């Protein structure tokens, strides 16, 4: 019994870290992993999702709908930004660092100016359950499920739908996709919008568990980038195992040596994995399969 509750606890912690990494990373996996746009404003899309969903929930919309609304608004904002700014930069992806950094500054400070230094939260729904004498949050199980569902959904979209195929084609060789009749400009908008919406979804999902302040996005950014990059070129192959490995390391070290060890361990794991697999996990998986 003690062993079982210990095991449950470890799985819960790993699953919790996994959910955080996956949900943080998914939007970035699309925008950075697929489109090559180094999106330093990723955290601000998360912020957008969190603020919109919280506001909607406080106005009485049911939480699941509020979260979807957060994702949708973030997605629309993403499409708008893509149209206005990002699309001019596909040929020089490195410049997106500066632009998205600028966007992030505008968004964070703009939020502070317009909405003040914080907004009230909604509280975490669903309460708790107990295993082996410890209380656990039910909502965090929901987050884990949401992470798995998001991964599956993305995989389906990108490998099983026509949009997914056209999106990947557009991003790999845009001018040829265009010459083959693909409306690449629409595809770019939709893809960027999808990435932004996923970030918004992350924000909406985590909003009930966090402090809502204009700088809250920064809590996600490093983890997101690290997960996507460790995953490697093929985000659908790479992101899930990357998140799993990093979550395992982080949860293990955190429970063994505390939060600092978990944080540093995560980063060291990143360095080690990339050193062993210089093309990320994807490179490794593909070599095994090909």
């Amino acid at each position: 019994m003690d062993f079982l509750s210990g095991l449950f606890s470890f799985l819960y912690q790993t699953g919790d870290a996994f959910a955080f990494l996956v949900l943080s990373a998914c939007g970035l996996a699309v925008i950075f992993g697929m489109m090559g746009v180094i999106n330093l404003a990723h955290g601000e899309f998360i912020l957008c999702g969190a603020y919109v969903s919280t506001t909607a929930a406080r106005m009485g919309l049911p939480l699941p709908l509020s979260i979807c609304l957060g994702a949708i608004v973030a997605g629309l904002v993403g499409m708008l930004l893509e149209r206005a700014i990002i699309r001019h930069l596909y040929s020089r992806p490195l410049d997106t660092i500066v632009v998205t950094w600028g966007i992030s500054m505008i968004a964070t400070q703009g939020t502070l100016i317009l909405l003040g230094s914080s907004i009230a939260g909604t509280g975490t729904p669903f309460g708790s359950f107990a295993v082996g004498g410890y209380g656990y949050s039910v909502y965090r199980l929901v987050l884990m499920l949401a992470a798995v569902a998001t991964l599956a959904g993305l995989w389906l979209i990108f490998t099983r739908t026509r949009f997914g195929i056209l999106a990947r084609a557009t991003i790999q060789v845009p001018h040829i996709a265009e010459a083959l009749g693909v409306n690449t400009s629409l595809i770019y908008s939709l893809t960027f919008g999808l990435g932004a919406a996923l970030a918004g979804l992350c924000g909406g999902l985590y909003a009930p568990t966090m402090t809502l302040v204009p700088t809250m996005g920064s809590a996600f950014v490093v983890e997101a980038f690290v997960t996507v990059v460790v995953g490697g070129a093929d985000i659908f192959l790479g992101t899930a195992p990357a998140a799993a490995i990093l979550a395992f390391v982080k949860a293990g070290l955190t429970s063994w040596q505390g939060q600092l060890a978990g944080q540093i361990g995560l980063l060291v794991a990143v360095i080690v994995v990339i050193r062993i697999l210089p093309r990320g996990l994807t490179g490794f998986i593909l070599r095994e399969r090909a």
Partner: protein
Amino acid sequence: MRKEVMLETIALRSGYGGKPVLQGVDMSVRQGEIVAVIGRNGVGKSTLMKSLIGLLPPQNGSVLFEGAEIGALSAHRRARLGIGYVPQGRDVFPRMSVVENLLVGQSIDGSGQADARKRLGQIYGYFPILEERRDQRAGTLSGGQQQQLAIGRVLMGGPSLILLDEPSEGIQPNIVQDIARIMVELNRETGITVVFVEQNLDMIRAMTERCYVMDKGAVIAEIGAEVLQDRDAVRRYLAV
């Protein structure tokens, strides 16, 4: 039985940034015709093809497709009119599988899934290696395999006009012959119009009776079957 003019350029000028390459190209291709474009390195053949499909905006002059001006249309709109383009250097989507590459080509006519299966079967018939390597990432195909994929890809969209930029490049001799045969067959069966840039005289001869010669960004001659039969005559056109 004169057929309608399908594709026509009038004093077409285009180029890269400030640098003009095409200096007023006039050509005209009739429905159901197969026409070759030849010329030395760097005279602007690929530039012409890119201007036809719309990857380069015209700086001047016009491009007419089935009588309508298409010079202002973006590439994907032109493609959807039924123009297929096989670029020089193949440009397959490297991190997508062979089938996925083929499916992208469908956008030319935006057809549905049912049709896709039939077309795939047809293309696998032309290029059996593509079926064999259906799930291999295109970037790891050999050069010639990629070229076959690039050709198969536009055929997926069932275009009515196809622009081929050096289709024989990197392809083994017997498949070059196959490709020439396939094009001629398709042309006969479906009436597809073909404009192709090529250096391989055997392929040119196998496919067409009419050929534009380009130099310094302009069409300098148009030659017919008799001249094409004469290797040395063609060479003279291509010499400096």
